[in-house]
């Protein structure tokens, strides 16, 4: 009898511990509110047309523009109208590639798609044990639609971003992102939206112009390294990352080449600069925001940066290829 009672009590105790542990894990991982889960689940299937404003505040500069969007599942078209600094540009994206037309230079740039990437980080926050918290509440009206507000906070309660989501379709109608000091550095907001646009012609999601120069990120990389100032060194596709864009940054007599790669694990940037880079200083500056790995070759310093674990970055640098054609 005593043994039976003891066994029942032990089972009950273990079960209670298990339930408490599960609840604690949920709190730690920040189980996402239902509307956010809807947004992530539906984001590849949305269909709408609309107009939105996008604004950045970085390095003391406010950059704002309006754009027109046509969306049908994985297909997306963005136009910038006839005015503003992106006048005439068109972006078309399907699940495989992104094409951007520049009328001034009559160029079409082909690069990896980005649509899912903006939600991929959010998804990783929702699933990973990073201590991110989600708070749901009634939101205000955006583009004449009622919304639910989701606040994303870190472990200490610092606000990371706010999303106003249409509870019927899961479309994010407004998204605001904040820097570590709580200042809003970027947002987009739909000004108008039609969530039942009817049939959208498939031709809207194709972009080819006879006579236009088609360029890829690797064309830009070859162009940047042809002059001899930089070495042709890159991550191959087998690394799981695809080259998205290449740019050069000038700083006080030194030039730095930046290659940005995208993959399912997020974005990584490969930097190349003549001279030294202080790894210790770099680590202090990037702590909590990204991981970095530094190496040098023939007087040139290379840095691989990303939000991946350092061990993963170490495995990637072993894959870096130097030489001629990829």
């Amino acid at each position, binding site marked *: 009898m005593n043994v039976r009672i003891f066994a029942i009590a032990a089972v009950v105790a273990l079960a209670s511990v298990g339930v408490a542990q599960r609840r604690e894990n949920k709190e730690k991982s920040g189980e996402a509110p239902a509307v956010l889960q809807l947004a992530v689940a539906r984001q590849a299937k949305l269909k709408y047309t609309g107009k939105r404003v*996008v604004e950045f505040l970085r390095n003391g500069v406010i950059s704002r523009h309006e754009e027109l969007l046509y969306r049908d599942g994985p297909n997306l078209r963005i136009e910038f109208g006839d005015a503003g600094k*992106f*006048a005439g540009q068109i972006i078309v994206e399907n699940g495989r590639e992104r094409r951007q037309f520049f009328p001034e230079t009559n160029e079409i740039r082909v690069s990896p798609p980005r649509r899912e990437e903006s939600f991929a980080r959010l998804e990783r926050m929702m699933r990973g044990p990073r201590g991110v918290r989600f708070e749901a509440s009634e939101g205000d009206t955006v583009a004449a639609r009622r919304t639910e507000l989701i606040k994303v906070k870190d472990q200490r309660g610092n606000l990371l971003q706010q999303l106003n989501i249409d509870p019927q379709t899961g479309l994010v109608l407004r998204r605001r992102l904040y820097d570590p000091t709580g200042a809003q550095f970027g947002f*987009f907001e739909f000004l108008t939206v039609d969530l039942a646009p009817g049939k959208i012609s498939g031709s809207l999601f194709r972009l080819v*112009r006879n006579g236009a120069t088609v360029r890829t990120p690797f064309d830009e990389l070859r162009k940047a390294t042809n002059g001899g100032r930089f070495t042709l060194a890159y991550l191959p596709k087998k690394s799981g990352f695809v080259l998205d*864009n290449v740019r050069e*940054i000038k700083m*006080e007599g030194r030039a730095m080449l930046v290659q940005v790669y995208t993959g399912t694990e997020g974005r990584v940037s490969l*930097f190349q600069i003549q001279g030294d880079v202080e790894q210790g200083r770099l680590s202090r500056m990037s702590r909590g925001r990204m991981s970095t790995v530094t190496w040098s070759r023939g007087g040139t310093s290379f840095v691989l940066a990303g939000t991946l674990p350092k061990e993963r970055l170490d495995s990637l640098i072993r894959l870096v290829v130097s030489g001629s054609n990829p």
Partner: protein
Amino acid sequence: MNQQNHQQNNPMSIDDKLNHPSQAWVQNMVNKLPDETPSLAWRSQLNERIRLEAKRRARKRFWTFALSPAAGLATVSALVALVWMPRTPQAESVATGSSVESAIVRAHQDEVLGVDVAGSSVSYTESARFASRVELPHPDEGSLIELESL
């Protein structure tokens, strides 16, 4: 002096002045001067010089007329090119005093956060680099984006 005193005392009439011997002497001298009529050869040379000079001035007027608008156009074009040069992607400049390390951290963050904000649209780094002017042709001119299956 005596003659002057005499003249002062006895003023002469116009007729007397004209009939004075000195007047007669000048008249006689003028009459004796040779008659210099320009020769035909001299006139011909003068005409030729006038003709050449006229031709030269006409040429000068023509080139001034032809080149002045071009010079004005070239000046305006140079001013337009200087003030409104098409912006092409250029290397970004980092503020003086920024270290390489801070530039690396900022550059990567700009990339990641830019995509978070813009998604498939123009990211922050692209926004900072690319700015196209309005160059679209009028729709009636028929420049259409051709269609092709991707």
